């Protein structure tokens, strides 16, 4: 994919390195001398474009007209917003990603400025920390719809409340569905009669609140 990254600071440069390693066609734009000096040491010179971030000619030099993705990673939220709007409206870029620097500006990062994906570092960190604190051994496999619903996995230890209980007899949290059980290398499709065993790996689709209730069913209460 052709990716234009605007803003080559720590976030932008890290993203560029990751994408280059995956063989994507990456171009980075920045206007700060110090930053440019640093990324010239880290990235191939022909991928770095120097110039004002909102200047159409500079962006066109970086190939925004053929870009599949534009990632706005500058430290100014208003610049990131204008970049997303510009990328979609003027150049028809299919996917726009913007970094949110100040969480208080997050309300603007949506269709209003054609932001497809907002990367709100502060809130991602906060919710990850919160999940780590509350969910113990539960692993999040996939986040759906910007992280409101998740597919989670949990291995049932001996002593958990759910062991020996059939799904139909288990009072499951409201916004939660058991989607699969992995048992001795096989997939068991969950039915009402299916009884949980020690060592089962349970996959469930759930929202954050139900996830916490689910943990209570599938964890060994003695462990705390």
């Amino acid at each position: 994919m052709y990716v234009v990254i605007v803003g080559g600071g720590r976030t932008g440069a890290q993203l560029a390195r990751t994408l280059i390693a995956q063989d994507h066609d990456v171009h980075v734009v920045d206007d700060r001398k110090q930053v440019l000096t640093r990324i010239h040491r880290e990235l191939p010179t022909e991928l770095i474009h120097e110039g004002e971030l909102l200047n159409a000619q500079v962006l066109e030099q970086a190939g925004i007209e053929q870009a599949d993705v534009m990632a706005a990673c500058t430290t100014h939220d208003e610049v990131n917003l204008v970049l997303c709007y510009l990328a979609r409206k003027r150049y028809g870029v299919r996917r726009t990603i913007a970094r949110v620097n100040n969480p208080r500006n997050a309300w603007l990062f949506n269709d209003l400025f054609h932001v497809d994906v907002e990367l709100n570092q502060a809130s991602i960190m906060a919710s990850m920390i919160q999940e780590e604190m509350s969910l113990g051994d539960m692993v999040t496999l996939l986040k759906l719809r910007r992280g409101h619903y998740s597919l989670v996995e949990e291995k049932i230890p001996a002593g958990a409340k759910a062991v020996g209980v059939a799904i139909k007899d288990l009072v499951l949290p409201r916004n939660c569905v058991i989607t699969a059980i992995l048992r001795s290398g096989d997939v068991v499709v969950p039915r009402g009669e299916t009884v949980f065993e020690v060592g089962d790996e349970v996959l469930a689709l759930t929202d954050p609140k139900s996830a916490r209730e689910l943990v209570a069913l599938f964890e060994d209460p003695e462990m705390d």
Partner: protein
Amino acid sequence: MQIIVVGCGRMGSELAYRMSQRGQDVAVIALPDAPRENLPADFQGRVFEGDVTNYEVLHRAGIETCDALVAATNSDALNLVVAHAAAQKFHVKTVVARNYDPAYRYLYEMFDLQIVSATSWAAQRLEEMVYHGEVRAVFSAGNGEVEVYELAVGAEWDGHPLSEWMIADVIAVSVARAGRAHLPRPDWILKAGDVVHVSATLDGVESLRALVCRPREEK
């Protein structure tokens, strides 16, 4: 009218003060780096300090109920974001933005925003004044792309039809004779002392000036 002025630099504070002197209900949002000191002590409006992209700040200034918003900071990106949010999210009836750097004017066109580009406008006026004093611009439309000019008819044009002046990029607006203005028809015959108003681009008025002020030997 309830009006929000975003930005409290020289432009924002001057504008806010003028409108409050006219009795408008003005709220100024002063950015952390451009504090309220620019406002005269007798400013009657309300002042809020904070980031203009913070919803709480806009809400306190009355974004949901205001009739008009002017984005007048010295950051084009900030003006674009605030003006676009005001127009599209809060449906503020009148939204005007200040274009600070003329290089970024194309962005305002893309956002479909009304702007005043003080730098472009002043540069254009200064350019006109350097070239010629005798043809006076009396009204600027947009940011000076089209202006209305006033020209006096000299004796050498007495008896000529006005249509001779209607060259490319020039349209007649009115002809005043003896203190009374007329909507001119193309067959209007000029008389020395008439004052003609035309609407023209800068190129148009340059050509007209060359034609009208040229020393006329023939006929």
